[in-house]
């Protein structure tokens, strides 16, 4: 007996199909009407799921994720930088604005403290001027060659410090904060 091919099945009339279907439901040899216990149905389900395989992502998936990670890292760094700059600006504005407002308020009130504060600033300015004069006297007092040597030593020290900072910065990986 040859197995009916797809064309044979497709050509079966609808009424005949329905009759055959009803016969299948009624015929116990075809497995109809058999009560199935819970354990049997679970076993059938387990058998089906045991054949299930793991779905695999596309080949480019990992690379795609890392591109997004790099983008997010860059965005987070920009946000942190902007946040820090804004914080500094706000603090400066608050400090300067507050100071100006306070001074103008005190000056308007013509309180004796205004004279006292002015005197303090004058004293500070005098001290700084004296300091500058002293440094100039010391610098002129040092012989010419020693000044040059001193300058070279300071330059070398600054260069070594800069190189050390650059080396340390290169060794430490970029930090990420959530």
């Amino acid at each position, binding site marked *: 007996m040859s197995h009916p091919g797809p064309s044979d099945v497709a050509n079966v009339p609808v009424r005949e199909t329905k009759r055959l279907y009803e016969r299948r439901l009624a015929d116990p040899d075809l497995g109809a009407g058999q009560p199935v216990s819970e354990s049997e149905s679970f076993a059938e389900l387990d058998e*089906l799921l045991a054949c299930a395989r793991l779905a695999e992502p596309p080949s480019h998936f990992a690379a795609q994720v890392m591109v997004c990670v790099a983008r997010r890292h860059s965005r987070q760094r920009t946000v942190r930088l902007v946040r820090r700059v804004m914080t500094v600006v706000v603090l400066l504005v608050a400090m300067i604005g507050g100071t100006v407002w306070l001074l103008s308020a005190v000056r308007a009130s013509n309180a004796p403290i205004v004279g006292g504060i002015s005197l303090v600033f004058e004293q500070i300015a005098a001290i700084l001027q004296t300091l500058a004069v002293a440094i100039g006297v010391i610098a002129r007092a040092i012989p010419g060659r020693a000044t040059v040597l001193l300058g070279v030593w300071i330059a070398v020290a600054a260069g070594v410090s800069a190189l050390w900072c650059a080396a340390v910065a290169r060794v430490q990986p970029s930090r990420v904060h959530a």
Partner: protein
Amino acid sequence: MGGIDQERLWVLRAQQGDQEAFASIVNAYQGPVYNLAYRMLGSSGDAEDAAQEVFLRAYSHMESYDPARKFSSWILSIASHYCIDRLRRGHGRQVSLDEFEPDRWLPDPAPRPEQTALDRDREEQIRRLLATLPEQHRLVIVLRYWHDMSYEEIAQITSTTESAVKSRLHRARGAMADALANEARRQPVNTVVERTVEHVTSRAI
């Protein structure tokens, strides 16, 4: 160096901001995370988006990972919660058979056409059965059957108790078994006709 030690090293370096170490983690866990997302959301496109978002969240919150906990549990926990949130927000969608990509599955070492067709039918059937379940039940089934997780691990991932996990698993299996039995009773008519014609003809001979 053992696999777990290697993983711990990657995690430690990733927590310090090493993107190469995080790339190793992505390579190691892209399969399980993608599979969970696919089984939960039912669509390869949604699964890809969801899996990508899971890894981004893991990257952003690496510092909050507790080394006392298994990393697989932690990252699958992120994936589970994200997929459930997404389903509840209604972003999961029905997938048509046209989107089904049999090439996406792990390759069979000796593929045959009839085996490929059987595999495709089976996978589609599994997808339909999973779609009948509520999100929480679907999740425990996926974690149990695809990821071989213990009740304790599943409870940790789903933030619930072991008894709740067992209860959900039992109800999910019951629902899927019922749906499977209903599908068997409603087999396509042409398949029924084939079997019936063969049976009747063989009895007549």
